[in-house]
Protein backbone atom coordinates (compact mmCIF):
# COMPACT_ATOMS: atom_id res chain seq x y z
CA UNK A 1 0.00 0.00 0.00
CA UNK A 2 1.24 3.42 -0.89
CA UNK A 3 0.25 4.83 2.47
CA UNK A 4 2.37 3.15 5.06
CA UNK A 5 0.00 2.63 7.96
CA UNK A 6 1.09 0.40 10.83
CA UNK A 7 -0.82 -2.82 11.55
CA UNK A 8 -2.12 -1.17 14.71
CA UNK A 9 -3.50 1.77 12.71
CA UNK A 10 -5.24 -0.60 10.29
CA UNK A 11 -6.60 -2.54 13.25
CA UNK A 12 -8.13 0.57 14.85
CA UNK A 13 -9.40 1.77 11.47
CA UNK A 14 -11.21 -1.47 10.66
CA UNK A 15 -12.30 -2.29 14.22
CA UNK A 16 -12.71 1.07 15.92
CA UNK A 17 -13.05 0.96 19.71
CA UNK A 18 -15.62 2.95 21.68
CA UNK A 19 -17.62 3.92 18.65
CA UNK A 20 -20.93 5.72 19.04
CA UNK A 21 -22.56 8.42 21.12
CA UNK A 22 -23.18 8.44 24.88
CA UNK A 23 -26.73 9.53 25.66
CA UNK A 24 -26.93 12.36 28.22
CA UNK A 25 -23.17 12.81 28.15
CA UNK A 26 -21.43 15.03 30.69
CA UNK A 27 -19.15 16.50 28.07
CA UNK A 28 -19.21 16.73 24.31
CA UNK A 29 -17.11 18.30 21.57
CA UNK A 30 -16.87 18.23 17.80
CA UNK A 31 -13.58 19.29 16.22
CA UNK A 32 -12.72 19.82 12.57
CA UNK A 33 -15.16 20.33 9.74
CA UNK A 34 -16.52 18.41 6.75
CA UNK A 35 -14.99 20.98 4.40
CA UNK A 36 -11.54 20.15 5.76
CA UNK A 37 -12.23 16.46 5.32
CA UNK A 38 -12.00 15.46 8.94
CA UNK A 39 -14.36 15.91 11.84
CA UNK A 40 -14.47 13.98 15.08
CA UNK A 41 -17.17 13.99 17.74
CA UNK A 42 -16.64 12.85 21.33
CA UNK A 43 -19.11 12.26 24.13
CA UNK A 44 -17.81 11.64 27.65
CA UNK A 45 -19.07 10.43 30.98
CA UNK A 46 -17.06 12.10 33.75
CA UNK A 47 -17.35 11.33 37.47
CA UNK A 48 -18.04 14.73 39.12
CA UNK A 49 -16.34 13.75 42.40
CA UNK A 50 -13.17 12.12 41.12
CA UNK A 51 -12.99 13.90 37.70
CA UNK A 52 -12.15 10.54 36.16
CA UNK A 53 -13.31 9.81 32.59
CA UNK A 54 -15.58 6.83 33.12
CA UNK A 55 -16.69 6.42 29.54
CA UNK A 56 -15.97 7.97 26.16
CA UNK A 57 -17.32 7.35 22.68
CA UNK A 58 -16.49 8.85 19.30
CA UNK A 59 -17.86 9.30 15.82
CA UNK A 60 -15.67 10.23 12.93
CA UNK A 61 -15.93 11.63 9.45
CA UNK A 62 -12.50 11.32 7.95
CA UNK A 63 -9.75 9.21 6.54
CA UNK A 64 -8.38 5.95 7.91
CA UNK A 65 -5.89 7.65 10.23
CA UNK A 66 -8.55 10.05 11.48
CA UNK A 67 -10.69 7.10 12.54
CA UNK A 68 -7.71 5.20 13.98
CA UNK A 69 -6.34 8.13 16.02
CA UNK A 70 -9.77 8.92 17.47
CA UNK A 71 -10.27 5.25 18.33
CA UNK A 72 -6.93 4.88 20.13
CA UNK A 73 -7.35 8.27 21.83
CA UNK A 74 -10.53 7.01 23.50
CA UNK A 75 -8.59 4.02 24.84
CA UNK A 76 -5.76 6.26 26.03
CA UNK A 77 -8.00 8.54 28.11
CA UNK A 78 -10.43 5.95 29.46
CA UNK A 79 -10.20 5.86 33.28
CA UNK A 80 -7.85 8.82 33.44
CA UNK A 81 -8.21 12.02 35.47
CA UNK A 82 -9.07 14.98 33.27
CA UNK A 83 -5.96 16.90 34.39
CA UNK A 84 -3.79 14.07 33.12
CA UNK A 85 -5.56 14.20 29.76
CA UNK A 86 -5.15 17.98 29.57
CA UNK A 87 -1.38 17.48 29.73
CA UNK A 88 -1.25 14.96 26.91
CA UNK A 89 0.81 15.90 23.86
CA UNK A 90 -0.97 16.27 20.55
CA UNK A 91 1.17 13.66 18.80
CA UNK A 92 0.65 11.00 21.45
CA UNK A 93 -2.15 9.24 19.55
CA UNK A 94 0.17 8.83 16.59
CA UNK A 95 2.97 7.46 18.79
CA UNK A 96 0.58 5.01 20.38
CA UNK A 97 -0.31 3.69 16.92
CA UNK A 98 3.38 3.13 16.18
CA UNK A 99 3.66 6.31 14.12
CA UNK A 100 1.79 7.92 11.23
CA UNK A 101 3.02 9.20 7.86
CA UNK A 102 4.04 12.91 8.26
CA UNK A 103 1.18 13.98 6.02
CA UNK A 104 -1.26 12.38 8.48
CA UNK A 105 0.15 13.79 11.74
CA UNK A 106 -2.56 16.43 11.86
CA UNK A 107 -5.07 13.61 12.55
CA UNK A 108 -3.39 12.97 15.89
CA UNK A 109 -3.63 16.66 16.79
CA UNK A 110 -7.34 16.67 15.97
CA UNK A 111 -7.98 13.47 17.93
CA UNK A 112 -6.27 14.71 21.10
CA UNK A 113 -7.48 18.30 20.88
CA UNK A 114 -11.06 17.10 20.39
CA UNK A 115 -11.00 15.40 23.79
CA UNK A 116 -9.32 18.40 25.39
CA UNK A 117 -12.04 20.66 23.97
CA UNK A 118 -14.72 18.45 25.54
CA UNK A 119 -12.92 18.59 28.89
CA UNK A 120 -12.62 22.38 28.67
CA UNK A 121 -16.37 22.66 28.08
CA UNK A 122 -16.97 20.39 31.06
CA UNK A 123 -14.73 22.43 33.34
CA UNK A 124 -16.55 25.59 32.35
CA UNK A 125 -19.87 23.91 33.00
CA UNK A 126 -18.93 22.85 36.54
CA UNK A 127 -17.20 26.16 37.23
CA UNK A 128 -13.75 24.62 37.57
CA UNK A 129 -12.38 27.18 35.14
CA UNK A 130 -13.80 30.56 34.37
CA UNK A 131 -15.10 31.45 30.96
CA UNK A 132 -11.87 32.24 29.20
CA UNK A 133 -11.32 35.83 28.28
CA UNK A 134 -8.50 35.24 25.90
CA UNK A 135 -5.88 37.91 25.73
CA UNK A 136 -4.08 37.52 22.45
CA UNK A 137 -0.34 37.75 22.80
CA UNK A 138 2.46 36.74 20.48
CA UNK A 139 3.11 33.83 22.80
CA UNK A 140 -0.50 32.63 22.60
CA UNK A 141 -0.36 32.90 18.82
CA UNK A 142 2.73 30.68 18.79
CA UNK A 143 0.89 28.19 20.98
CA UNK A 144 -1.98 28.09 18.51
CA UNK A 145 0.39 27.69 15.56
CA UNK A 146 1.92 24.72 17.36
CA UNK A 147 -1.31 22.91 16.53
CA UNK A 148 -0.76 23.25 12.79
CA UNK A 149 1.32 20.45 11.32
CA UNK A 150 3.68 20.86 8.39
CA UNK A 151 2.55 17.88 6.26
CA UNK A 152 5.97 17.44 4.70
CA UNK A 153 7.69 16.68 7.97
CA UNK A 154 4.87 15.83 10.36
CA UNK A 155 6.14 18.52 12.73
CA UNK A 156 4.27 21.66 13.80
CA UNK A 157 4.98 24.92 11.96
CA UNK A 158 6.71 26.54 14.93
CA UNK A 159 9.15 23.72 15.65
CA UNK A 160 9.69 23.22 11.93
CA UNK A 161 10.89 26.83 11.57
CA UNK A 162 8.14 27.93 9.18
CA UNK A 163 6.94 30.90 11.23
CA UNK A 164 9.03 33.82 10.03
CA UNK A 165 7.15 36.59 11.81
CA UNK A 166 4.28 37.10 14.23
CA UNK A 167 3.14 40.61 15.03
CA UNK A 168 0.20 42.12 16.82
CA UNK A 169 -0.48 45.71 15.85
CA UNK A 170 -3.58 47.03 17.59
CA UNK A 171 -6.47 45.13 16.05
CA UNK A 172 -4.31 43.50 13.38
CA UNK A 173 -2.51 40.19 13.57
CA UNK A 174 0.22 39.56 11.00
CA UNK A 175 1.71 36.13 10.47
CA UNK A 176 4.35 35.40 7.87
CA UNK A 177 4.99 31.76 6.99
CA UNK A 178 7.98 30.68 4.91
CA UNK A 179 8.07 27.43 2.94
CA UNK A 180 10.98 25.53 1.42
CA UNK A 181 10.58 24.50 -2.25
CA UNK A 182 9.60 20.94 -1.27
CA UNK A 183 6.95 22.32 1.11
CA UNK A 184 5.36 24.74 -1.38
CA UNK A 185 2.87 22.14 -2.61
CA UNK A 186 1.18 22.37 0.80
CA UNK A 187 0.78 26.17 0.72
CA UNK A 188 -3.01 26.10 0.28
CA UNK A 189 -3.46 23.45 2.94
CA UNK A 190 -1.25 25.24 5.47
CA UNK A 191 -3.05 28.53 4.81
CA UNK A 192 -6.45 26.91 5.43
CA UNK A 193 -5.26 25.14 8.57
CA UNK A 194 -3.72 28.29 10.05
CA UNK A 195 -6.84 30.33 9.34
CA UNK A 196 -9.07 27.65 10.82
CA UNK A 197 -7.08 27.55 14.05
CA UNK A 198 -6.86 31.32 14.36
CA UNK A 199 -10.53 31.85 13.62
CA UNK A 200 -11.35 29.35 16.37
CA UNK A 201 -10.03 31.96 18.86
CA UNK A 202 -13.14 33.96 17.98
CA UNK A 203 -11.28 37.19 18.57
CA UNK A 204 -12.19 40.49 17.00
CA UNK A 205 -8.77 40.91 15.42
CA UNK A 206 -8.16 41.20 11.71
CA UNK A 207 -5.97 38.24 10.80
CA UNK A 208 -3.50 38.46 7.92
CA UNK A 209 -1.52 35.40 6.95
CA UNK A 210 1.14 35.64 4.28
CA UNK A 211 2.82 32.58 2.84
CA UNK A 212 6.20 33.13 1.22
CA UNK A 213 8.57 30.95 -0.65
CA UNK A 214 11.93 30.86 1.09
CA UNK A 215 13.47 30.98 -2.41
CA UNK A 216 11.54 34.14 -3.27
CA UNK A 217 9.35 32.50 -5.94
CA UNK A 218 5.67 33.09 -6.40
CA UNK A 219 3.53 30.46 -4.69
Amino acid sequence: MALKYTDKTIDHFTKPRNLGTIEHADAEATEGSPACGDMVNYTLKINPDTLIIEDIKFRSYGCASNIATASIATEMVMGKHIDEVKNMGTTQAASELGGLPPVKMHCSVLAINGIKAAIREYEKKIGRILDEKRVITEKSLFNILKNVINPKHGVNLVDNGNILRVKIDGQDIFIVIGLEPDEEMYAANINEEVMEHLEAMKCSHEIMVKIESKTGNFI
Partner: protein
Amino acid sequence: MAQNIIYMDNGDTSRIDDETLEYMNHFYTNSYGNPVSLHSLGMEADENLAEARRIIAGTINAEPEEIIFTSGATESNNMAINGIAEYLKNKGNHILISSVEHSSVKAVAHRLKNDGYKIDEIIVDSEGFIDIEDFISKIKVTTILVSVIYANYEIGTIQNIEEIGSICRERNIIFHTDAAQAYGKIKIDVKKENIDLMTFNAHKNHGPKGVGALYIRKGIKLRKLMEGGAHEFNLRPGTENIPALMGFARSAEIAQRDFEANNKILISLRDKLTDGLLKIDHVTFNGPKGTNISKRLPHNVDITFHYIEGEAILMHLSLRGICVSSGSACSSKTLEPSHILTAIGLKHEQAHGSIRFTLSKFNTEEEIDEVIKNVTEVVQILRSMSSFVPEEHSELISKNAKTFYKNKKAGE
Protein backbone atom coordinates in the same frame (compact mmCIF):
# COMPACT_ATOMS: atom_id res chain seq x y z
CA MET B 1 -1.01 -11.42 -4.73
CA ALA B 2 -1.99 -10.07 -8.14
CA GLN B 3 -4.65 -12.71 -8.91
CA ASN B 4 -6.71 -11.63 -5.89
CA ILE B 5 -6.64 -7.99 -6.88
CA ILE B 6 -9.53 -6.29 -8.64
CA TYR B 7 -7.84 -3.42 -10.39
CA MET B 8 -10.02 -0.43 -11.26
CA ASP B 9 -7.43 2.34 -11.34
CA ASN B 10 -6.52 2.22 -15.02
CA GLY B 11 -6.74 5.99 -15.27
CA ASP B 12 -3.57 6.04 -13.17
CA THR B 13 -1.79 3.24 -14.99
CA SER B 14 -2.62 -0.11 -16.56
CA ARG B 15 -1.26 -3.62 -16.80
CA ILE B 16 0.96 -4.21 -19.82
CA ASP B 17 -0.24 -6.72 -22.44
CA ASP B 18 1.76 -9.97 -22.36
CA GLU B 19 2.15 -9.72 -26.13
CA THR B 20 3.70 -6.25 -25.83
CA LEU B 21 6.00 -7.23 -22.98
CA GLU B 22 7.28 -10.24 -24.89
CA TYR B 23 7.82 -8.14 -27.99
CA MET B 24 9.86 -5.61 -25.98
CA ASN B 25 12.23 -8.28 -24.69
CA HIS B 26 13.78 -8.66 -28.12
CA PHE B 27 14.93 -5.04 -28.00
CA TYR B 28 16.64 -5.49 -24.63
CA THR B 29 18.47 -8.72 -25.42
CA ASN B 30 18.93 -8.92 -29.20
CA SER B 31 18.36 -5.67 -31.02
CA TYR B 32 19.73 -3.43 -28.26
CA GLY B 33 21.74 -0.90 -30.27
CA ASN B 34 21.76 2.88 -30.07
CA PRO B 35 20.28 4.57 -33.15
CA VAL B 36 23.19 7.02 -33.34
CA SER B 37 25.82 4.26 -33.71
CA LEU B 38 27.12 3.66 -37.21
CA HIS B 39 27.50 -0.13 -36.93
CA SER B 40 24.94 -2.77 -37.84
CA LEU B 41 23.18 -2.85 -34.45
CA GLY B 42 22.95 0.92 -34.51
CA MET B 43 21.44 0.91 -37.98
CA GLU B 44 18.95 -1.71 -36.90
CA ALA B 45 17.98 0.43 -33.90
CA ASP B 46 17.58 3.45 -36.17
CA GLU B 47 15.22 1.49 -38.40
CA ASN B 48 13.24 0.30 -35.36
CA LEU B 49 12.94 3.86 -34.12
CA ALA B 50 11.63 5.01 -37.51
CA GLU B 51 9.15 2.14 -37.51
CA ALA B 52 7.83 3.05 -34.03
CA ARG B 53 7.48 6.67 -35.07
CA ARG B 54 5.61 5.71 -38.24
CA ILE B 55 3.19 3.48 -36.30
CA ILE B 56 2.50 6.05 -33.58
CA ALA B 57 2.00 8.85 -36.13
CA GLY B 58 -0.45 6.66 -38.02
CA THR B 59 -2.70 6.23 -34.98
CA ILE B 60 -3.48 9.98 -34.84
CA ASN B 61 -3.26 10.83 -38.57
CA ALA B 62 0.06 12.66 -38.14
CA GLU B 63 3.31 12.50 -40.13
CA PRO B 64 6.22 10.59 -38.55
CA GLU B 65 8.39 13.72 -38.32
CA GLU B 66 5.65 15.37 -36.24
CA ILE B 67 6.16 12.88 -33.39
CA ILE B 68 8.71 13.62 -30.64
CA PHE B 69 9.24 10.78 -28.20
CA THR B 70 9.49 11.71 -24.52
CA SER B 71 9.51 10.03 -21.11
CA GLY B 72 5.74 10.38 -20.80
CA ALA B 73 2.82 12.77 -20.60
CA THR B 74 4.29 14.93 -17.83
CA GLU B 75 7.37 15.67 -19.89
CA SER B 76 5.30 16.25 -23.04
CA ASN B 77 3.08 18.74 -21.20
CA ASN B 78 6.08 20.55 -19.71
CA MET B 79 7.73 20.67 -23.11
CA ALA B 80 4.65 22.02 -24.87
CA ILE B 81 3.82 24.76 -22.34
CA ASN B 82 7.34 25.91 -21.50
CA GLY B 83 8.61 25.41 -25.04
CA ILE B 84 5.92 27.54 -26.69
CA ALA B 85 5.96 30.19 -23.95
CA GLU B 86 9.71 30.62 -24.33
CA TYR B 87 9.71 30.56 -28.13
CA LEU B 88 6.88 33.09 -28.48
CA LYS B 89 7.80 35.40 -25.62
CA ASN B 90 8.27 38.31 -28.01
CA LYS B 91 4.85 37.76 -29.54
CA GLY B 92 2.83 37.72 -26.32
CA ASN B 93 2.75 36.64 -22.71
CA HIS B 94 -0.79 35.39 -22.20
CA ILE B 95 -1.62 31.70 -21.81
CA LEU B 96 -5.12 30.23 -21.46
CA ILE B 97 -5.68 26.86 -19.83
CA SER B 98 -8.86 25.21 -18.64
CA SER B 99 -9.69 24.95 -14.95
CA VAL B 100 -9.62 21.15 -15.19
CA GLU B 101 -6.06 20.51 -16.36
CA HIS B 102 -3.66 17.93 -14.98
CA SER B 103 -1.03 19.45 -12.68
CA SER B 104 1.64 18.94 -15.37
CA VAL B 105 -0.17 21.65 -17.34
CA LYS B 106 -1.68 23.71 -14.51
CA ALA B 107 1.39 23.96 -12.30
CA VAL B 108 3.72 24.53 -15.25
CA ALA B 109 1.56 27.37 -16.56
CA HIS B 110 1.21 29.02 -13.17
CA ARG B 111 4.93 28.77 -12.54
CA LEU B 112 5.47 30.84 -15.69
CA LYS B 113 3.96 33.77 -13.78
CA ASN B 114 7.38 34.11 -12.13
CA ASP B 115 8.73 34.97 -15.58
CA GLY B 116 6.10 37.60 -16.31
CA TYR B 117 3.51 35.51 -18.14
CA LYS B 118 -0.19 36.02 -17.49
CA ILE B 119 -2.31 32.91 -16.99
CA ASP B 120 -6.09 32.71 -17.19
CA GLU B 121 -8.28 29.69 -16.62
CA ILE B 122 -11.38 28.88 -18.68
CA ILE B 123 -14.34 27.85 -16.56
CA VAL B 124 -16.26 24.60 -17.09
CA ASP B 125 -19.89 23.64 -16.54
CA SER B 126 -21.19 21.16 -13.95
CA GLU B 127 -20.23 18.20 -16.15
CA GLY B 128 -16.75 19.54 -16.85
CA PHE B 129 -17.28 20.92 -20.38
CA ILE B 130 -15.42 24.07 -21.40
CA ASP B 131 -17.61 27.17 -21.41
CA ILE B 132 -16.99 28.30 -25.01
CA GLU B 133 -18.30 31.84 -24.38
CA ASP B 134 -15.99 32.24 -21.40
CA PHE B 135 -13.14 30.85 -23.50
CA ILE B 136 -13.63 33.32 -26.35
CA SER B 137 -14.08 36.24 -23.95
CA LYS B 138 -10.74 35.47 -22.29
CA ILE B 139 -8.72 35.48 -25.53
CA LYS B 140 -6.50 38.58 -25.77
CA VAL B 141 -4.26 39.97 -28.50
CA THR B 142 -1.33 38.77 -26.39
CA THR B 143 -2.61 35.17 -26.14
CA ILE B 144 0.05 32.85 -27.52
CA LEU B 145 -1.13 29.45 -26.31
CA VAL B 146 -4.31 27.64 -25.32
CA SER B 147 -4.12 24.30 -23.52
CA VAL B 148 -7.26 22.23 -22.92
CA ILE B 149 -7.28 18.63 -21.73
CA TYR B 150 -8.78 16.28 -24.35
CA ALA B 151 -10.61 14.01 -21.90
CA ASN B 152 -10.64 14.50 -18.16
CA TYR B 153 -8.70 12.03 -16.03
CA GLU B 154 -11.05 12.30 -13.10
CA ILE B 155 -14.61 12.69 -14.39
CA GLY B 156 -14.13 11.46 -17.97
CA THR B 157 -15.43 14.57 -19.78
CA ILE B 158 -14.49 14.54 -23.48
CA GLN B 159 -14.13 18.12 -24.75
CA ASN B 160 -15.20 19.33 -28.16
CA ILE B 161 -11.59 19.54 -29.28
CA GLU B 162 -12.37 20.22 -32.94
CA GLU B 163 -14.35 23.36 -32.02
CA ILE B 164 -11.76 24.60 -29.52
CA GLY B 165 -9.05 23.91 -32.11
CA SER B 166 -10.83 25.82 -34.84
CA ILE B 167 -11.38 28.84 -32.54
CA CYS B 168 -7.61 28.91 -31.95
CA ARG B 169 -6.70 28.29 -35.60
CA GLU B 170 -8.89 31.19 -36.79
CA ARG B 171 -7.06 33.50 -34.41
CA ASN B 172 -3.60 32.14 -35.11
CA ILE B 173 -3.16 30.95 -31.51
CA ILE B 174 -1.30 27.73 -30.80
CA PHE B 175 -3.51 24.97 -29.42
CA HIS B 176 -2.16 22.21 -27.19
CA THR B 177 -4.21 19.34 -25.81
CA ASP B 178 -3.29 16.79 -23.16
CA ALA B 179 -4.68 13.51 -24.52
CA ALA B 180 -3.06 11.22 -21.92
CA GLN B 181 -6.47 9.80 -20.95
CA ALA B 182 -8.10 10.04 -24.38
CA TYR B 183 -5.46 8.30 -26.47
CA GLY B 184 -6.49 4.72 -27.27
CA LYS B 185 -10.01 5.31 -25.94
CA ILE B 186 -11.09 7.84 -28.57
CA LYS B 187 -10.23 7.97 -32.28
CA ILE B 188 -8.11 11.08 -32.62
CA ASP B 189 -7.37 12.88 -35.89
CA VAL B 190 -4.98 15.76 -35.24
CA LYS B 191 -5.51 17.25 -38.70
CA LYS B 192 -9.30 17.24 -38.63
CA GLU B 193 -9.40 18.48 -35.03
CA ASN B 194 -7.09 21.47 -35.59
CA ILE B 195 -4.57 20.31 -32.99
CA ASP B 196 -1.14 21.96 -32.99
CA LEU B 197 0.44 20.05 -30.11
CA MET B 198 -0.77 16.92 -28.39
CA THR B 199 0.48 15.00 -25.37
CA PHE B 200 -0.05 11.26 -25.09
CA ASN B 201 1.61 8.19 -23.60
CA ALA B 202 1.78 4.41 -23.51
CA HIS B 203 1.14 3.16 -19.99
CA LYS B 204 -2.53 4.06 -19.76
CA ASN B 205 -3.23 1.72 -22.68
CA HIS B 206 -1.47 -1.46 -21.57
CA GLY B 207 1.87 -0.23 -22.87
CA PRO B 208 5.13 0.30 -20.94
CA LYS B 209 5.60 3.08 -18.38
CA GLY B 210 8.12 5.88 -18.87
CA VAL B 211 7.42 6.57 -22.54
CA GLY B 212 5.18 9.01 -24.33
CA ALA B 213 5.11 11.49 -27.16
CA LEU B 214 4.42 15.06 -28.09
CA TYR B 215 2.80 15.64 -31.47
CA ILE B 216 4.08 18.91 -32.93
CA ARG B 217 2.35 20.03 -36.12
CA LYS B 218 4.70 20.77 -38.99
CA GLY B 219 5.69 24.43 -38.86
CA ILE B 220 5.14 24.90 -35.12
CA LYS B 221 8.36 25.91 -33.42
CA LEU B 222 9.25 25.60 -29.77
CA ARG B 223 12.25 25.92 -27.50
CA LYS B 224 13.59 22.60 -26.22
CA LEU B 225 13.62 21.94 -22.47
CA MET B 226 16.92 20.14 -22.05
CA GLU B 227 20.30 20.52 -23.71
CA GLY B 228 22.31 17.55 -24.92
CA GLY B 229 22.59 15.65 -28.17
CA ALA B 230 20.61 16.28 -31.33
CA HIS B 231 18.11 13.45 -30.81
CA GLU B 232 14.45 13.66 -31.77
CA PHE B 233 14.91 16.34 -34.47
CA ASN B 234 17.08 18.28 -32.03
CA LEU B 235 14.12 18.83 -29.71
CA ARG B 236 14.63 16.21 -27.03
CA PRO B 237 18.15 15.01 -26.20
CA GLY B 238 19.03 11.63 -24.72
CA THR B 239 19.45 8.12 -26.08
CA GLU B 240 16.08 6.85 -27.27
CA ASN B 241 14.49 4.17 -25.10
CA ILE B 242 14.03 1.76 -28.00
CA PRO B 243 12.48 -1.20 -26.10
CA ALA B 244 9.88 1.10 -24.52
CA LEU B 245 9.21 2.86 -27.82
CA MET B 246 8.68 -0.46 -29.56
CA GLY B 247 6.33 -1.45 -26.73
CA PHE B 248 4.53 1.89 -27.11
CA ALA B 249 4.08 1.23 -30.82
CA ARG B 250 2.89 -2.34 -30.28
CA SER B 251 0.40 -1.32 -27.57
CA ALA B 252 -0.90 1.45 -29.86
CA GLU B 253 -1.40 -1.07 -32.67
CA ILE B 254 -3.27 -3.42 -30.33
CA ALA B 255 -5.46 -0.57 -29.07
CA GLN B 256 -6.25 0.38 -32.66
CA ARG B 257 -6.86 -3.22 -33.75
CA ASP B 258 -9.25 -3.97 -30.87
CA PHE B 259 -10.74 -0.49 -30.60
CA GLU B 260 -14.39 -1.27 -31.38
CA ALA B 261 -14.50 -4.48 -29.35
CA ASN B 262 -12.77 -2.95 -26.30
CA ASN B 263 -14.94 0.13 -26.29
CA LYS B 264 -18.07 -1.99 -26.41
CA ILE B 265 -16.88 -4.03 -23.41
CA LEU B 266 -15.76 -0.97 -21.45
CA ILE B 267 -19.01 0.92 -21.97
CA SER B 268 -21.06 -2.10 -20.94
CA LEU B 269 -18.98 -2.63 -17.78
CA ARG B 270 -19.00 1.09 -17.00
CA ASP B 271 -22.77 1.33 -17.25
CA LYS B 272 -23.29 -1.81 -15.17
CA LEU B 273 -20.99 -0.44 -12.45
CA THR B 274 -22.67 2.98 -12.55
CA ASP B 275 -26.16 1.50 -12.28
CA GLY B 276 -25.12 -0.71 -9.36
CA LEU B 277 -23.44 2.07 -7.41
CA LEU B 278 -26.24 4.57 -7.99
CA LYS B 279 -28.56 2.18 -6.13
CA ILE B 280 -26.77 3.24 -2.93
CA ASP B 281 -28.58 6.12 -1.17
CA HIS B 282 -27.11 9.63 -1.04
CA VAL B 283 -24.69 9.42 -3.94
CA THR B 284 -23.90 11.74 -6.87
CA PHE B 285 -22.60 10.65 -10.28
CA ASN B 286 -19.91 13.17 -11.25
CA GLY B 287 -19.19 14.13 -14.87
CA PRO B 288 -21.18 13.68 -18.12
CA LYS B 289 -24.38 11.69 -17.72
CA GLY B 290 -27.79 11.18 -19.35
CA THR B 291 -27.80 12.55 -22.87
CA ASN B 292 -24.13 13.48 -22.51
CA ILE B 293 -22.96 10.00 -21.59
CA SER B 294 -21.54 9.56 -25.11
CA LYS B 295 -19.13 12.39 -24.25
CA ARG B 296 -17.73 10.46 -21.30
CA LEU B 297 -14.64 8.25 -21.43
CA PRO B 298 -15.75 4.63 -21.88
CA HIS B 299 -13.89 3.39 -18.82
CA ASN B 300 -14.58 6.12 -16.23
CA VAL B 301 -17.03 6.15 -13.31
CA ASP B 302 -16.76 8.86 -10.62
CA ILE B 303 -19.13 8.93 -7.69
CA THR B 304 -19.47 10.97 -4.50
CA PHE B 305 -20.68 9.01 -1.50
CA HIS B 306 -22.07 11.66 0.79
CA TYR B 307 -21.28 12.00 4.51
CA ILE B 308 -18.11 9.91 4.34
CA GLU B 309 -14.54 10.48 3.26
CA GLY B 310 -12.86 8.99 0.18
CA GLU B 311 -9.54 7.91 1.62
CA ALA B 312 -11.31 5.78 4.22
CA ILE B 313 -13.46 4.18 1.48
CA LEU B 314 -10.34 3.61 -0.61
CA MET B 315 -8.44 2.02 2.30
CA HIS B 316 -11.34 -0.29 3.17
CA LEU B 317 -11.61 -1.38 -0.48
CA SER B 318 -7.84 -1.82 -0.69
CA LEU B 319 -7.94 -4.16 2.33
CA ARG B 320 -10.56 -6.14 0.39
CA GLY B 321 -8.30 -6.33 -2.67
CA ILE B 322 -10.00 -3.60 -4.72
CA CYS B 323 -7.89 -0.79 -6.20
CA VAL B 324 -9.55 2.58 -6.91
CA SER B 325 -8.63 6.24 -6.44
CA SER B 326 -10.22 9.24 -4.72
CA GLY B 327 -10.47 12.98 -5.21
CA SER B 328 -10.44 13.59 -1.48
CA ALA B 329 -7.90 15.88 0.15
CA CYS B 330 -6.67 13.09 2.40
CA SER B 331 -5.69 10.91 -0.52
CA SER B 332 -3.98 13.68 -2.44
CA LYS B 333 -0.33 14.54 -2.03
CA THR B 334 -1.09 18.22 -1.43
CA LEU B 335 -3.89 17.65 1.10
CA GLU B 336 -6.22 19.64 -1.14
CA PRO B 337 -9.39 18.17 -2.66
CA SER B 338 -9.34 17.55 -6.40
CA HIS B 339 -9.45 20.86 -8.28
CA ILE B 340 -11.43 19.07 -11.01
CA LEU B 341 -14.29 18.38 -8.61
CA THR B 342 -14.28 21.88 -7.15
CA ALA B 343 -14.16 23.32 -10.71
CA ILE B 344 -17.43 21.55 -11.58
CA GLY B 345 -19.00 23.11 -8.51
CA LEU B 346 -18.69 20.42 -5.87
CA LYS B 347 -18.26 21.62 -2.29
CA HIS B 348 -15.13 20.43 -0.51
CA GLU B 349 -17.03 17.84 1.50
CA GLN B 350 -18.54 16.46 -1.72
CA ALA B 351 -15.11 16.21 -3.32
CA HIS B 352 -13.76 14.45 -0.22
CA GLY B 353 -16.33 11.68 -0.63
CA SER B 354 -15.52 10.92 -4.26
CA ILE B 355 -14.21 7.65 -5.64
CA ARG B 356 -13.00 7.11 -9.19
CA PHE B 357 -13.24 3.71 -10.85
CA THR B 358 -11.35 3.39 -14.14
CA LEU B 359 -11.85 0.10 -15.95
CA SER B 360 -9.84 -1.85 -18.49
CA LYS B 361 -10.40 -4.67 -20.95
CA PHE B 362 -9.12 -7.05 -18.26
CA ASN B 363 -12.08 -6.36 -15.93
CA THR B 364 -15.01 -8.79 -15.92
CA GLU B 365 -18.74 -8.70 -15.13
CA GLU B 366 -18.05 -10.78 -12.00
CA GLU B 367 -15.58 -8.17 -10.81
CA ILE B 368 -18.16 -5.44 -11.32
CA ASP B 369 -20.63 -7.41 -9.15
CA GLU B 370 -17.95 -7.94 -6.50
CA VAL B 371 -17.07 -4.24 -6.46
CA ILE B 372 -20.70 -3.10 -6.19
CA LYS B 373 -21.23 -5.49 -3.26
CA ASN B 374 -18.09 -4.38 -1.42
CA VAL B 375 -18.58 -0.65 -2.00
CA THR B 376 -22.15 -0.93 -0.71
CA GLU B 377 -20.90 -2.60 2.49
CA VAL B 378 -18.02 -0.19 3.03
CA VAL B 379 -20.22 2.86 2.52
CA GLN B 380 -22.64 1.47 5.09
CA ILE B 381 -19.87 0.81 7.62
CA LEU B 382 -18.37 4.28 7.30
CA ARG B 383 -21.73 6.03 7.43
CA SER B 384 -22.62 4.12 10.57
CA MET B 385 -19.69 5.78 12.35
CA SER B 386 -19.76 9.16 10.63
CA SER B 387 -20.02 12.33 12.67
CA PHE B 388 -21.27 14.15 9.57
CA VAL B 389 -24.59 12.44 8.88
CA PRO B 390 -27.28 15.14 9.10
CA GLU B 391 -30.15 14.84 11.55
CA GLU B 392 -32.70 14.02 8.85
CA HIS B 393 -30.72 10.94 7.81
CA SER B 394 -29.95 9.66 11.30
CA GLU B 395 -31.30 6.25 10.25
CA LEU B 396 -27.98 5.76 8.46
CA ILE B 397 -26.22 5.81 11.81
CA SER B 398 -28.42 3.80 14.14
CA LYS B 399 -29.53 1.13 11.70
CA ASN B 400 -26.11 0.47 10.33
CA ALA B 401 -24.20 0.58 13.59
CA LYS B 402 -25.69 -2.79 14.47
CA THR B 403 -24.77 -4.29 11.12
CA PHE B 404 -21.29 -3.04 11.63
CA TYR B 405 -20.73 -4.78 14.94
CA LYS B 406 -22.13 -8.08 13.72
CA ASN B 407 -20.32 -8.01 10.46
CA LYS B 408 -16.65 -7.34 11.11
CA LYS B 409 -15.48 -8.36 7.66
CA ALA B 410 -13.47 -5.24 7.21
CA GLY B 411 -10.54 -6.29 9.35
CA GLU B 412 -9.85 -9.54 7.56
